[in-house]
């Protein structure tokens, strides 16, 4: 069943066409990857789907509702969350605070009850905390929960961003180059993490350049070039596709 579908989505920046008449469907429960050369429109598509930008034409539906042009926080509340290619960590918050803040949009108590510290507020805080700790344990950061997030090593900051996104209880998570800057070991661990995210019932949409990761973990791949989709299929089909080799992969197999 289609969870996210893009229909004839086009995005212009000035005269430059970043996404060109793109049709894309991501099914519920799959791990889907979008690859392509730099500047081929992958991140732009993520921005369009999560409301950071509005498409010039066309539209994107999530769970059958239009999301294109919606405001970002509404889309996240609908269950579509993303991470960023360049880390965006809250510099003054601790690891645990990141994850509790991720759950903020699912909490219900109001300001005045928070100021009066009612029983509901205390119960809610307890619940949010337990949930945050569960997610931190899931990504393997529980022992660092009281660290200031900015003092985590780079790879762990990436994990924290994923944890923060998972705390919003999403149905689908879009990971924009999660392995960038990760060591070989960390990106191997990421493969397991991505699989277990899917096993929690969350659909995964992945953008990355590390072919070892992409080919290993994804079930379906679409390839973009100059904003247009040039191929779509299983990892095996993609690796053998002459157009993709020509535009993106290259003949050598040196890249990891």
């Amino acid at each position, binding site marked *: 069943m289609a969870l996210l579908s893009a229909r004839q989505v086009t995005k212009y920046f000035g005269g430059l066409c970043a996404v060109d008449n793109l049709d894309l469907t991501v099914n519920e429960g799959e791990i889907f990857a979008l690859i392509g050369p730099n500047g081929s429109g992958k991140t732009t598509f993520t921005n369009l789907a999560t409301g950071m930008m509005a498409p010039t034409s066309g539209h994107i539906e999530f769970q059958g509702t239009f999301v294109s042009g919606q405001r970002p926080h509404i889309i996240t509340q609908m269950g579509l969350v993303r991470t960023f290619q360049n880390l965006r960590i809250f510099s003054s918050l601790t690891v645990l605070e990141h994850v509790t*803040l991720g759950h903020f949009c699912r909490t219900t108590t109001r300001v005045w009850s928070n100021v009066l510290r009612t029983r509901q507020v205390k119960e809610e805080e307890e619940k949010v905390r337990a949930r945050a700790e569960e997610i931190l344990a899931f990504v393997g950061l529980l022992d660092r929960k009281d660290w200031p997030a900015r003092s*985590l090593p780079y790879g762990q900051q990436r994990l924290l961003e994923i944890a923060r996104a998972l*705390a919003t209880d999403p149905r689908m998570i879009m990971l924009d180059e999660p392995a960038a800057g990760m060591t070989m070991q960390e990106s191997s661990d990421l493969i397991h993490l991505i699989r277990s995210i899917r096993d929690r019932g969350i659909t995964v949409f992945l953008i990355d350049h590390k072919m070892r990761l992409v080919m290993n973990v994804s079930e379906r791949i679409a390839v973009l070039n100059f904003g247009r989709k040039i191929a779509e299929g299983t990892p095996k089909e993609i690796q053998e596709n002459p157009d993709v080799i020509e535009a993106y992969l290259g003949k050598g197999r040196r890249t990891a």
Partner: protein
Amino acid sequence: MGNSRLRNICLVIIFVLLACAEPLITSRFYKFVLALAVINVIMVTGLHVIFGLTGQIFMGMAGFWGIGSYILALATTKMGLGFWPALILSSVGVGFMGVVLGIPTLRLKGYYLSITTIGFGEITRFILMNWSAVTGGVFGVFNIPRPHFGGFVLTNDAHFYYFSLALAAILAVVAAILEDSKYGTAFKGVRDDELAADAIGIDSTGIKVMAFVTCGLFVGIGAGLYSSLLTYISPEVFTLEESFRFVTMVLVGGIGFLPGAIVGAVVLTFLPEMLRFLQAWYLAIYGLIVLGIVIYQPGGIAGALQGFLERRRLARGEGKQYGTA
């Protein structure tokens, strides 16, 4: 800093010191300045929420202050409202101005927001001066009543002082609770990275408007007390320089640390008065002092305190808690 225990200890110490200070000051003038300082503490607590916690450089404090002062002044003298309803009205009124100002934040960030708030402050002063029919124009408003409890009116400046101090303490506690709640974390999240906050489902615009409204509610109370303390107000007080002075209070205290902002408010209320013997030079020197703080102690009082605690911890041989990254 992010250390709520340190914050609470500092708050207790500050309010105890302020309570003890009143009898120690003998000069009538400085007693008055002390009362002004506590009113500024209330207003700076509001600014702390929007500037310190939410990171929005709000340069229109004079606007909030002016509106709040005039609401109380006009409500008591022209509408015949009692002091208490008028104080609530000024708080709510300025809180509402927070919504009005918050709406532009739907689209504005950084400098744009700051400049819009400067514009807001200047336009407010302009209206207060020129809308003579209502505001009395440049002549201002006279005979603003003092607070009362039943038949007991706080004409005595000392009584007024303790009354304001009690309100300031209550509001500081409210601000501290808010800071420790999930909303406090959300404020800081929006301050650190608005886009990231949006991406995890936080309505950053809503959070900013909320911070503006909270600021307005606090400033409204302080401004009302100001009118009542002086019993006379006129528009030429509410200038851009005053807005800057409030921002400087937060800065001197250290952005994001409430006790720091409060100390900043007290210091910067007294400093210009104490520099008055320098006559024409005093504002120039005041500018230099602010410049010096920004350059040499950018963390403000909070930064100095943190540095001190850090050095002491190191001296005691407790290693850093976190590894390098």
